[in-house]
């Protein structure tokens, strides 16, 4: 089976500063992999590097096809839905327009309609807020919108950058429950970056732990979770 995403010896730079020092990992179709680590470990940078939003060196293959060096929008068009840090809401547009923008690249009307209904089913609150300006949504609602926008692309891989950030625990649980459903029903692979390691390990099947731009350990999520030494030294709980 060809891996959905393969990253090999990936290095990333912000100006002169190197933020990733050769990261290698892969993700199976339909799998959920999580990247864990402290602040500044390079988790967000890894996601950004996959979408060519920072200067990178290294090989990235999506579904066996090399995508390194492609423009961000072209990578997205391959089927990579990136839910960015800060959610990337189009604040001056309505919720409806946000969703329409997200489906901009698609020409299959019926499919778009279907995905719309799917999104409404996952997040009924968005349907109630369709005409509302997206900037006025609550943080949780904006996160739901961000995930929905990525879904409207019809992706096969979603890159999720701290979906729990700044949200109340109840809402976080809700969002993670939906993410599990999305993974199961829409057969979307997920690469999840999280500060909240306990939560992420609950959802993911594989985990990689990053430290200062390097992968320091990896394994099955359940193994990582049950290994107290790792939890204590790297994940802080």
């Amino acid at each position, binding site marked *: 089976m060809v891996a959905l995403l393969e990253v090999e010896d990936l290095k990333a730079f912000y100006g002169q500063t190197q933020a990733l020092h050769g990261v290698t990992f892969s993700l199976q179709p339909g799998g959920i992999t999580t990247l864990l680590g402290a602040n500044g470990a390079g988790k967000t940078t890894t996601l950004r590097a996959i979408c060519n939003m920072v200067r990178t060196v290294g090989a990235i293959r999506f579904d066996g096809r090399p995508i390194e060096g492609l423009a961000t929008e072209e990578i997205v068009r391959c089927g990579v839905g990136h839910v960015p840090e800060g959610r990337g809401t189009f604040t001056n*547009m309505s919720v409806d327009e946000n969703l329409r923008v997200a489906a901009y690249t698609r020409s299959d009307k019926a499919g778009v309609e279907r995905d719309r209904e799917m999104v409404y089913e996952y997040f009924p609150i968005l349907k109630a807020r369709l005409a509302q300006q997206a900037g006025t949504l609550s943080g949780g609602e904006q996160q739901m919108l961000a995930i929905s926008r990525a879904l409207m692309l019809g992706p096969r891989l979603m890159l999720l950058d701290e979906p729990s950030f700044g949200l109340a625990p109840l809402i976080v649980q809700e969002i993670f429950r939906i993410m599990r459903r999305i993974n199961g029903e829409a057969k979307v692979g997920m690469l999840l970056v999280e500060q909240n390691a306990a939560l992420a390990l609950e959802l993911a099947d594989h985990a990689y732990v990053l430290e200062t731009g390097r992968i320091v350990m990896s394994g099955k999520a359940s193994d990582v979770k049950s290994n107290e030494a790792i939890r204590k030294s790297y994940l802080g709980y």
Partner: protein
Amino acid sequence: MEQLLQQVASGLANGAIYACLALALVMIFVSTDHINFAQGELSMFSAYLVWQLIQWGLNFWLALAIVAFVSFLIGVMVERVILRPLHSAPVLSIVVVFIGLLAIFHSLAGAIWGHTIKDFPSPFPNIAFAGSGYIGPHQIGMILVTIALLVALFSFFRFTPLGLAMRAAAQNPASARLAGIRVDWMLALGWGLAAAIGAVAGSLVAPVVYLEPNMMASILLYGFAGALVGGIASPGGAVVGGFIVGVLENLIAYLGNLLEKTTGVYIIGNGEKLTVALIIVITVLTLKPSGLFGHVTVKRV
């Protein structure tokens, strides 16, 4: 009273042109954060193209449609070829490039068509109608075309996927890329649209001010004033601002004349129109840079 109404009516007509230009300026500003100092000369150049096609026997509207399309292509080219490589250049470089473009279009028009003033036919039939004492057919036509243009643009940006994508690209380029939108092309399209709108503005104002290479210099200043009054980041506001400035300009001159007639003191008249525009520009810029209808936008750093 009658005179006052007349002044307001012709102010609205002038305002229509300012509104068109303001719209073109806003179009470029929202997508690239640049103020296009060459907008006036581009419009003038387009008006000449229309004139040329009319000379070759084309109907005004057909000529305008063709030129609007050609201008669109010119706009796209200017963005892609000239401005794109300078994307991260300092503001001064960008401003200088705009000045360079201004010089090029200005002198090309002079070189190709000469500097003598040319008559430009009005596309609107010269008929009498109720209220034609206040406002001429061409002036009504200018207002109607502007409003039609605004409605068309509004629908385009609100309802079509491409319009939405352009708005998304202007608002949040990074996020737009993550929706698979080719942001660079959207900016170029914004330029193209601006150039096309400018073509309409130039061709509508040419019958009023006559065709010559300098025709747009002062009109552009009013376009700036209109854009600023309405909020340089808000297309709807720009149009309203254009109309406000057009009326304001005439009213100030009217009041100046009235004052002179009644008291014999001259303060302000037609000769000070540009100074009025200057004062409007500086006042709005310093007191309310977001304009009457604009909201404060977060500055991109």
